[in-house]
């Protein structure tokens, strides 16, 4: 089965869980910006949790599949249509040959994931399929997907009884994951330079509303909102940063480092988004204001383990469902 890009999106690339163990050479891990959605669509499509997927922002690519397949999309809602009919998020769908997937309108979220059942014929570099656009390696020739790209898939589960240009939504779906926090609250842990901020700055950080600016990308989300003032004018020596690190720029603006961040940075790290809330901040659009809430390591770890537990249950369910499907 081949997947063909008939119209390019603006920032569509192949991603997986990222490239680990090479940051000491300056190679950033990359990987899906919303790992939770990526893992969920993979499981629903009958793939290994960390298999490569196509990550899309809006406007997203239009895609044609030349043979029957099983696909799942999830994450942002771009009003997807399959063969002209609305396609649900987080459901496996059986598609006939020459089915067309399109994304019509930007509704919710920022990043939508497409998992296709089977082995994607993409390039693995340093243990990962994630696209490293700076050095042009991994994924699809190390670049964003463009019109005319044809990505092959092998080892597909059998797909029977579905006509050309038709599809069938399978009954199974993922139960949405809710955490304890309100939708607009992002939990953070204080960073090593938290005390660089004035008391007034700390108050603003915790009470004011911020929004993700339009200039944000896979590397980082710059936040619009009240500037945060600092106490100190001490130059920091560059050191390591992570996905979720909130850096304070000299003008008082904050930038949240995302999946495509550089390995090191020299700005004060005032806080870190907890790992369980990476998916939440990744999907925030400009019109959805957010509020930061300081939390403690116990809460951060509890929420992360809860999220992992949710995925384990999903994984067990999907494993059983796909074993049944193959038997039939």
């Amino acid at each position, binding site marked *: 089965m081949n997947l063909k890009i008939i119209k390019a999106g603006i920032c569509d690339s192949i991603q997986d869980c990222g490239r*680990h*163990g*090479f*940051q*000491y*050479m*300056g*190679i950033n891990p990359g990987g899906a910006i919303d790992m939770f959605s990526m893992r969920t669509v993979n499981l629903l499509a009958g793939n290994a949790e960390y298999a490569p997927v196509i990550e899309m922002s809006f406007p997203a690519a239009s895609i044609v599949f030349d043979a029957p397949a099983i696909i799942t999309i999830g994450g942002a809602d771009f009003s997807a249509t399959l063969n002209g009919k609305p396609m649900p998020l987080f459901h496996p769908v059986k598609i006939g040959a020459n089915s067309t997937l399109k994304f019509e309108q930007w509704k919710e979220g920022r990043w939508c994931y497409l998992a296709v059942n089977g082995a994607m014929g993409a*390039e*693995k*570099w*340093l*243990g990962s399929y994630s696209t490293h656009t*700076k*050095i042009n*390696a991994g994924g699809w020739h190390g670049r964003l997907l463009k019109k005319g790209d044809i990505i092959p898939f092998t080892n597909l589960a059998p797909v029977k009884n579905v006509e050309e240009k038709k599809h069938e939504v399978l009954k199974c779906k993922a139960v949405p994951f809710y955490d304890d926090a309100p939708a607009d609250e992002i939990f953070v*842990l204080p*960073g*090593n330079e938290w005390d660089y901020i004035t008391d007034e700055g700390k108050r603003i950080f915790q009470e004011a509303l911020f929004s993700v600016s339009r200039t944000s990308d896979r590397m980082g989300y710059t936040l619009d909102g009240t500037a945060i003032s600092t106490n100190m004018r*001490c*130059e*920091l*020596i*560059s*050191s*390591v*940063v*992570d996905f*979720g*690190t909130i850096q304070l720029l000299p003008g008082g603006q904050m930038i949240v480092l995302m999946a495509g961040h*550089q*390995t*090191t940075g020299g700005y004060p*790290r005032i806080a*870190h*988004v*907890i*790992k369980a809330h990476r998916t939440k901040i990744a999907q925030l659009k400009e019109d959805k204001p957010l509020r930061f809430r300081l939390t403690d*390591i*116990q809460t*951060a*770890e509890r929420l*992360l*383990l809860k999220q*992992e537990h949710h995925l384990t249950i999903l994984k067990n369910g999907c494993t059983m469902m796909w074993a049944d499907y193959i038997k039939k």
Partner: protein
Amino acid sequence: MRTYFPYTIFPLGDSALTVDFGNSIDQDLSAHVMSIFTYIQSHPVDGFIECVPAYSSLTIFYNPGKLKNEIRNNETISDIAREKLEEVVEMKNIFSPEKPRTVKVPVCYDEAFAPDTKLVLREKKISKQELVSIHSTVEYRVYMLGFLPGFAYMGEIDAKIRMPRKALPQKVHAGSVGIAGNQTGVYPIHSPGGWQIIGRTPIKLYEMIDADNFSTFFQPGDIVQFYSISRDEFENY
């Protein structure tokens, strides 16, 4: 020479920890950081994903899902990771530097490759010969790699040619040699960059060996000596 380095360990969020030996650029400190890094690379710690050295600190990324099985009593996963890290740092806190490697790097300081040289000469009131001689006389130490694959942060620059970073990053050509504050470095690939560009090297700064192997020209701990080459030598290198 010091034999013990005081340190603090602080969390970098909920899945990484940084051992910090102080906010300073110091050869002994850097050598110490590298000795711990080298030890962890050859003696992997269960539950650690990777270890990244910086100027005066070292960060480890850990897998909370793996480490949670080792929790006793009221400990957090972060506590477990910290105990494991402390154990290594304490054990390695006896200073044993490795012998550094010296690498020579040709640089063409021709203005065609050095869009910011004019500004440096004007600001620092020096001649081009002085700039070249000052930049290529000092032996630099590679403190860490970061920013881009194979990008080496080196120090320290002579105070006579220290320049601030640019206010806005500009397009920089691969091989460009830049200076910023007391640091100097070479851009391995085309990239936006904020350092003042004063020359270019013909050397390739990384090699994609195969799908599983990557090597960088510079390594932390290296002693680097730049030497000036002509435009002709650059073109025929």
